[in-house]
């Protein structure tokens, strides 16, 4: 526990907090785009400790939360087939589709399995040659190399009863979409540490320059986040807009090149809908034509399926920072982690679930300019 104690030394935290507060000449608005960071910020109350100096907007940093309704419905359709074993990371099972979720499909007899690694799904396909095994390939750039490897491996080993339902998203286009919005309030970003472990930070450099916003690659532990905020505030106070790396121990400028190469081999950029936000051009990854044999949407005839979102979930307003979770009329009443209306209440990394789980039903100072 020695290092934990050192790392959580309250003296260090207090010093960083004091430095941020004393240097902020106004209240700056920063966005984190990482569900792990959102979880830490809300759990530790970092945003409340800093509320006079910094407003934190919890951006679309949870891949579970931004998976569009139509991809969930496709998953439900495939998982209900008697010839299919549907595999997924565990946190997708409770995301509500139009009619039900994957857990309910399983309760009705569907073969829905949680896998830890996408390679486990390939292995499951090898051991069940008379079944179609489908893996729900979701995630940001951190997860894309793992999912790309599963597809590459299936082809290498000739596992033709394996396919993937792809709903991959990438962070930089979402940041640009936030900045392009006419009602944008974001003045700086914490970039997601493990996304950058894979990708490095070169693609953030043109964003920082074009929009004149600081972007700080940041880890997900409390002191990481405080240091990331400090670096961003220091840039804002001095009028700089650069990409900086707080998460030095895990991130290099070019990322993890072998992982990037396999992602490039298997996937290509595609337009992608984000739940609650809408379609963002070239913001997702889809299989390249050479790997179309492993595309579950083609295999099960779902390429033309679309589903519009509706209902009272205001996830889009939360993800764009226009609404704090507790300002949503459904928060904590008609929408709870047990009965979620939308994905941000499902995942422990979703802003709504984090606010709910840590008792944030209101806030002493609501952001200036934020309308309920």
């Amino acid at each position, binding site marked *: 526990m020695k*290092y934990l104690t050192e790392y959580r030394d309250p003296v260090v935290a207090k010093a960083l907090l004091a430095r941020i507060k004393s240097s902020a000449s106004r209240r700056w608005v920063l966005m984190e785009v990482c569900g792990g960071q959102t979880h830490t910020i809300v759990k530790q109350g970092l945003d409340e400790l800093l509320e006079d100096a910094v407003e934190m907007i919890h951006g679309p940093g949870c891949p579970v939360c931004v998976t569009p309704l139509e991809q969930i419905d496709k998953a439900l359709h495939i998982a209900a087939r008697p010839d299919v074993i549907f595999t997924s990371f565990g946190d997708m099972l409770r995301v509500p589709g139009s009619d039900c979720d994957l857990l309910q499909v399983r309760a009705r007899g569907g073969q829905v399995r949680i896998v830890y690694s*996408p390679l486990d799904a390939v*292995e499951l396909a090898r051991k069940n040659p008379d079944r179609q095994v489908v893996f729900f390939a979701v995630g940001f750039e951190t997860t894309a190399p793992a999912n790309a490897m599963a597809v590459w491996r299936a082809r290498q080993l000739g596992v033709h009863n394996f396919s993937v339902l792809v709903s991959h998203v990438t962070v930089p286009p979402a940041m640009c979409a936030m900045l392009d919005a006419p009602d944008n309030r974001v003045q700086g970003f914490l970039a997601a540490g493990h996304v950058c472990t894979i990708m490095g930070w070169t693609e953030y450099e043109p964003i920082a320059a074009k929009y004149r916003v600081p972007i700080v690659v940041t880890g997900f532990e409390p002191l990481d986040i405080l240091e990331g905020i400090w670096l961003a505030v220091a840039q804002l106070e001095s009028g700089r807009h650069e990409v900086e790396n707080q998460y030095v121990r*895990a991130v290099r400028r070019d990322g993890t090149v*072998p992982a990037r190469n396999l992602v490039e081999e298997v996937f290509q950029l595609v337009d992608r809908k984000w739940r609650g936000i809408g379609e963002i051009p070239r913001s997702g990854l889809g299989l390249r034509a050479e790997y179309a044999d492993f595309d579950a949407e083609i295999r099960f005839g779902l390429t033309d399926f679309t589903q519009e979102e509706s209902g009272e979930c205001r996830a889009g307003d939360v993800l764009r920072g226009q609404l704090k979770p507790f300002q949503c009329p459904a928060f904590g009443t008609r929408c709870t982690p047990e009965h979620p209306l939308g994905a941000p209440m499902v995942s422990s990394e979703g802003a709504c679930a984090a606010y709910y789980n840590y008792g944030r039903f209101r806030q002493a100072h609501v952001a200036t300019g934020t309308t309920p």
Partner: protein
Amino acid sequence: MCLGIPGRVVDIRDDQGLAMGTVDFGGIRREVCLAYVAGDIRPDDYVVVHVGFAISKVDEVEARRTFEVLREMSQLEELEWMREVADRSLDPLGGPAA
């Protein structure tokens, strides 16, 4: 979802052309794909693992510290999955759904 868990590489081997290995996470051992860091690691090195893939090498001090912080924060959900599904996910259809 993008959380990574640090662990110690126990062994490295070739599985039909793919670098795989055993990684020890504070006592729980799991098969991990090492393909993305293969040129850079040896047994007893520490790696950050995300959904069964090593995504970067870290030093031991850093690995222990991060692991303790994660445990303290009760954010080892990935580790819980590992515990739950490590033995079951590869079962044929007769096995319990994880």
